[in-house]
């Protein structure tokens, strides 16, 4: 029983991290039809930057801020300088460019921070735990779950209540049409890409105390985020949330019950969802 609850908590926490990534990916896919294969790299790089900041300042929240800002700026720069150009119009071009970035960032991270797994220490105030009988609920994990919920609400508000979100929902990417209503579509796209990147970087720092930072994590987590988007449905915020929790739980239980086949269970889930509804649970078309 204790085991079950612990795994559930871990699964939900991991799911929250995945949600942060998948939400960004899904947003980028939904309106800009960009597959950002460097998204996992944003997570890892953000985490590493946060690690360095935490090491030098002993301040976890500064680390979060640093990771978030650094990757947000990187995302903005990447979009404006590279992805908006004509050679990046087609899907394949974007895939190749973002994949190139994955390779570069991955190697840079290994160069700067080494190949040994690192972890970011939890902030002081979140060191403790709450006790329910035999169950230990670490405060940090609780905080991550709450934070995930907060970001979900924020993204929901952004999508449903702001004019930028309206554009996302309309799936409009026609320059002339949106200029007519006084919105600069390029600005919106840059904003969305930057927000997605920023959240990914933030997730990297937040996940630091929980899953750590290591070489290869960028690809691992990118793949899981992609599976979440496939299962949840491209462009759907709820799909990203539900899918992320689902995959988080499957991963958590899978790794502890069937360690050799845990990847297979995730794959099987993806196959089953695709067979029933090829566009994902909350997907359209």
């Amino acid at each position, binding site marked *: 029983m204790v085991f079950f609850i612990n795994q559930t908590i871990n699964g939900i926490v991991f799911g929250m991290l995945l949600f942060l990534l998948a939400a960004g990916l899904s947003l980028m*896919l939904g309106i800009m*039809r960009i*597959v950002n294969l460097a998204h996992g790299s944003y997570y890892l790089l953000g985490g590493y930057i946060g690690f360095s900041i935490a090491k030098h300042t002993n301040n976890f929240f500064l680390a979060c801020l640093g990771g978030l800002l650094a990757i947000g700026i990187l995302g903005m720069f990447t979009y404006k300088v*590279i992805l908006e*150009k004509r*050679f*990046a119009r087609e*899907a*394949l*071009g974007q*895939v*190749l*460019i973002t*994949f*190139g*970035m*994955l*390779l*570069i960032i*991955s*190697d*840079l991270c290994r*160069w700067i921070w080494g190949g040994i797994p690192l972890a970011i220490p939890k902030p002081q105030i979140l060191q403790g735990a709450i006790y329910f009988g035999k169950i230990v609920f670490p405060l940090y994990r609780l905080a991550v779950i709450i934070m995930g919920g907060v970001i979900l609400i924020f993204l929901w508000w952004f999508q449903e209540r702001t004019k930028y979100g309206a554009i996302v929902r309309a799936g409009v990417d026609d320059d002339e049409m949106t200029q007519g209503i006084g919105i600069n579509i390029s600005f919106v796209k840059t904003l969305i890409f930057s927000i997605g990147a920023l959240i990914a970087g933030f997730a990297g720092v937040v996940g630091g105390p929980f899953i750590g930072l290591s070489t290869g994590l960028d*690809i691992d987590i990118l*793949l899981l985020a*992609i*599976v979440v*988007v*496939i299962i949840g449905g*491209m462009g759907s915020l709820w799909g990203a949330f539900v899918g992320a929790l689902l995959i988080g739980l499957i991963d958590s239980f899978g790794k502890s019950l069937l*360690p*050799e*086949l845990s*990847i*297979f269970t*995730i*794959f099987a889930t*993806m*196959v089953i969802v*695709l*067979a029933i509804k*090829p566009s994902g649970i909350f997907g359209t*078309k």
Partner: protein
Amino acid sequence: MKNPKLPIAIVIILAFLSTLPLFLPPYYTGLFSLMIIFGIFAMSLDILQGYTGLPSLGHAAFFGTSAYMVGILNVKIFKGCNFGVELITGILSAAVVASILGLIVLRSKEVYLLMILMASSMMLWGIAFKWRSLTGGDDGLPGISRPDLRPIHWDLGSTTHFYYFVLLFFIVAAVLMYLVVHSSFGHTLLGIRESETRMRSLGYNIWLQKYIAFIVSAVFAGLAGILIAYYNGFVSPAELHLVTSAEVLIMVILGGAGTLFGPAIGAGIIILIKNFVSGYTEHWMIILGAIYIFTVMFAPQGVYRLFRQFLQK
């Protein structure tokens, strides 16, 4: 219609390839063996990507599965090389993986397809990585013996002899793939690439054509996988990894998607650069990433087409 310079170019290249062990040191002969193996691998992906229009970041799935089959049979079961069985099993395993994956994957739209193939291939990597008892985990399976071709006096332990062995397969594979791509079936693949709706309204079951193309492409990738197992003498999860899929993908794009021989040239270029760079630095991945970005920015149609345009001037 056909460029008269093409047959001449082919003859020159063949002459060069057939005689290079005579004037190059064994190290480079070995390197060319690797280039040729990846040439087969890249051409196989071109059938899917350049001709059918189905880009894939998961082609290593077929390459690696086939290589592992050889490894498992060679090291664990036969404790030596049983070439006939290994050859057939390798190719069949790639075809089986493709026939299963194809059922799941080919109904999805373009972007989804790419992601699903990428995920599927990495799933296989994960299985190879974790299943120590079968695959040796991240240590892989060392100790793969090369085929013993008696009574033919070919000692595949020799770099030169192995090179000719691989070259023979390359020529056979290249001829077969050339025929496939220029056949009626290959012609319909072009139609699918250009306009799926048009093909459907003309009466084609495009899902079936794609499925067949998928399997055919996998078969040749599997052949390359068999050869890489013998070349390396071991097999490891790297053969199934995303980076391998990425390397072969950029070989196709850099060489020229849809030209068949372009990707083979692309393979040669990437292997050469990788070999050169690895002599100076560990950071091949950064260079590869830069190649990715630069190719899209400056040479998206590929080196082969650029060269052809240059020849026409």
